[in-house]
C-alpha cells in the first residue's frame, strides 16, 4: 500500500502534470479563469484519465505486446481514448444526467488533451521499464496525475482572480502575465522535490 501512496503523491506533487511536466497547458491557461469551470474540467480529466488507463492497460498488455505491435501504441491509444470519450458521453447522458450536466460539456475537449494521452503513454513506458509497475500502480498514477491537474487548476484560478484587479504594464496584460504567474506557481511546486523520497524512503 505504501508504494501506491508514494506513486499517488509523486504524481500529484513532485511530478505535477501541468507545472512540472508541461502536459495539459491549454486547459490550464484557457479555462482556469473561474473556479467552477476549473473544478468541472479537472473532475472530467480525472474521470477520463482513470477510464482511459483502465481500458488501455489490458489492450497494451494482452493485445499489442504479445503480437509485437507495440509500435501501434500511439494510434491505438488515441483512437481508444476518442471512442471512450464518446461512449462515456452517451452513457452519461442516457443514465446519469446529473453527472452529464456537470461533466458533459468538458468531455469533447478532453479527447485531444495531451494530458490524457500523456498519462497513458507514460504508464506504458513505466510498465515497460519496471515489471512491478502493474495495473494498480498505473491506476494510482493516473488518478494522481488527474488530482495534480486539479490542484494546479484550482490554485491557479485563485491566483488569476487576484490578478484581475492588479495594475499590470500594458504589454504584459493578458497571456504574458498569466504565464509569469504560472511560473511562480510552478516555483512553489519545485519545493516538493525530494519530499516523497524522504517520507517513504
Amino acid at each position, binding site marked *: 500500500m505504501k508504494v501506491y501512496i508514494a506513486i499517488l503523491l509523486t504524481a500529484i506533487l513532485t511530478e505535477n502534470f501541468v507545472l512540472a511536466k*508541461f502536459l495539459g497547458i491549454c486547459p490550464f*491557461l484557457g479555462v482556469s*479563469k473561474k473556479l467552477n469551470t476549473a473544478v468541472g474540467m479537472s473532475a472530467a480529466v480525472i474521470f477520463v484519465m482513470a477510464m482511459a488507463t483502465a481500458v488501455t492497460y489490458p489492450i497494451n498488455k494482452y493485445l499489442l505486446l504479445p503480437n509485437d505491435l507495440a*509500435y501501434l501504441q*500511439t494510434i491505438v491509444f*488515441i*483512437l481508444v481514448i476518442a471512442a471512450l470519450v464518446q461512449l462515456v458521453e452517451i452513457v452519461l447522458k442516457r443514465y446519469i444526467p446529473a453527472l452529464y*450536466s456537470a461533466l458533459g460539456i468538458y468531455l469533447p475537449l478532453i479527447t485531444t488533451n495531451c494530458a490524457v*494521452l500523456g498519462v497513458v503513454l507514460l504508464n506504458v513506458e513505466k510498465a515497460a521499464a519496471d515489471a512491478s509497475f502493474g495495473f494498480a500502480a498505473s491506476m494510482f498514477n493516473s488518478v494522481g496525475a488527474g488530482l495534480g491537474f486539479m490542484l494546479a487548476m484550482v490554485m491557479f484560478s485563485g491566483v488569476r482572480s487576484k490578478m484581475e484587479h492588479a495594475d499590470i504594464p500594458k504589454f504584459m496584460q493578458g497571456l504574458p502575465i498569466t504565464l*509569469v504567474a504560472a511560473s511562480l506557481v510552478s516555483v512553489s511546486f519545485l519545493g516538493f522535490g525530494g519530499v516523497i523520497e524522504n517520507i517513504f524512503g
Partner: protein
Amino acid sequence: MAEKKTLGQEFRKGLLTENPVLRLVLGTCPTLATSTSMVNAIGMGISVTLVLLCSNIAISLLRKVIPSKVRIPAYIVIIASFVTIVQLLVKAFVPALDEALGVFLPLIVVNCILLGRAEAFAGKHKVLASAADGLGMGIGFTAAVFCMATIREFFGSGTLFSGADSLLGLFGITSFKGIDVFSHIPGIEPILIFVLAPGGFFTFGLLMACANRIAESKGKKKAELNGCDNCPMAAACALRSGEECEGKEAVEA
C-alpha cells in the same frame, strides 16, 4: 483568409503574422517542454514540420472524401499515422533525441497545431496551398521554439547547441559538441531555474509580451487565449461562448 493568396504568402504567414506559437497560441505544451536545449528544439521542430507537411497534404487530398461529420476522427488517424512514422524514424536514426523528447514525440498527435491547421486550413484548401501552409507553420513553430530554447539554454546551462553531435552525426559530423560559454568566464554560474519548469513559463511569458509589443506597433491585435477560442475542438465545445450547459447537441452535429 477568403481572398486569394499566393503560395509564398501562405508560406510566409506562418513565420510571422500568424506564427502558431506566439500569435495563434497553439501547441504550448511542446513549446514549453522541448525548449530546454537548442538541439531538442530543432529536433522537435523538424519532427513537427514533417508531420504537419505530410498530414496537411494527405488531408487536403482527402478533403472531398471525408464526410464532415467524422472529419475530426479521420484527421486524428491520419496525423497519428504520420506521427508513428516520424517516431520510428527518430528512434532508428537519432536515438539520443528520442530519449530527450520522450513522451512529447508521440504526443505530436494531440498537438493543437496539427489538428488546428487541418481543421482551419487543409480541410478547405487545395493541395499546394496546404503544403505551403504546413511548411510555413512548421517552420514558424520551429523558429519560436528555437528562440525560446536559445534563451533558456544560454542562461540555464550556460551552453549553446550542447549535444549537437546527436543531430549532426546524421551527416557524419561528430566533432562539434556545442559551445560551452559560461565555463570560460570565471565567477559566473548558469541560472539553473531557466531550464526547469518555472523558467519555461517565464521565458514564454516574456517572449509573448515582446510579440505583443511588436504586433501592436504594426497595428495588429494582441495574442489572446480567451477560454478555448484557440483550441481546435472549440467548434465542438460548449465552453466556448461562456454558455455553461445546454446547447451542446447542436454544435456536434
